[in-house]
């Protein structure tokens, strides 16, 4: 039997209507969402320069210092309590370089660290959080050490506490 266009259209509509109203019944399924441990850490300035000049010296004093607080350390952690350590790759620096975490939004700052090639505690008791702190670097030189340049590559590492 040949259907007229109107009847054909009516059948299509009825067919689609049937499907939209669960013509195939009800089906359920299982979906699993798994969140793994995530750790992120970065420094907002990749390279900084510090210099000790006459402006940092006092006549009659052997030691001279300069301070930099221009960079920020940022992190995001969703695991158990962590700590952040710091170290330099420079094995035999001529001058002294220290670092301290200022005003951390999460965790507790460790005492100021004199950088060497061994990882030392920088920030402790960092829980599940995203946070930041200011990096306070202090460069120290003595007149008897003369002039020169130390090039450091400093590494901050998140690890289990």
């Amino acid at each position, binding site marked *: 039997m040949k259907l007229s266009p109107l009847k054909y259209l009516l059948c299509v509509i009825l067919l689609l209507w049937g499907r939209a109203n669960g013509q195939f019944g009800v089906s359920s399924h299982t979906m699993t969402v798994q969140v793994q441990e995530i750790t992120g850490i970065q420094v907002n300035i990749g390279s900084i320069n510090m210099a000790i000049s006459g402006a940092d010296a006092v*006549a009659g004093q052997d030691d001279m210092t300069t301070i930099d607080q221009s960079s920020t350390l940022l992190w995001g952690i969703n695991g158990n309590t962590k700590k952040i350590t710091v170290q330099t790759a420079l094995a035999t620096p001529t001058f002294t370089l220290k670092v301290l975490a200022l005003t951390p939004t999460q965790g507790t700052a460790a005492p100021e660290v004199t950088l060497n090639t061994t990882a030392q505690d920088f920030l402790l008791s960092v829980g599940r959080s995203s946070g930041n702190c200011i990096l306070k670097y202090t460069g120290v030189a003595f*007149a008897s050490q003369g002039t*020169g340049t130390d090039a*450091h590559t400093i590494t901050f590492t998140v690890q289990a506490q």
Partner: protein
Amino acid sequence: MNRKSQNIAKTIAKVLASLTFVVASLCAQHSTAKQVLTLQVLELNKIDLVGTNLTLTVDAGDPSDLFQKPAVNTNTTLVWTSNGGTKKITVATSNSSSKFALKVSALDVSPGAGLTTAEVSFSDDATRDLIVGVGKSAGKCQLRFTAVANEKQSIGADAHVITFTITSS
């Protein structure tokens, strides 16, 4: 839709539903961060005086040694810091034609911070060596100023601005 198509559709639905979606970090996990830091120490030479402006007065003193007793002052300390090559400290007065004699010497120079020269007399405004062999060090010394007058000179006053300079040897 026929039964075959229905079965295919159901199979696809089951496959999709059974997938486990693992929520991983949208960016790679980073447990370390690195920063390059360059610490440069430039050559510096700093010198300063500890003490107030001085007035040396030559007076009569004991009549037996009239005009034989100079006026001496040791209240001023000279301090310096230098981290470059070997330097020296020079001294000069601004008064090129003083009436009365004025001399200066460096006493008790910090060990290893330099060597004192002979006493300097300010006969004119020329620059003269006061301490030599100043190495990479911080040091200090006591300044001894001596003013002398004789009976042939009338009363008066000389004003001096004394300048100490760290300079290359």
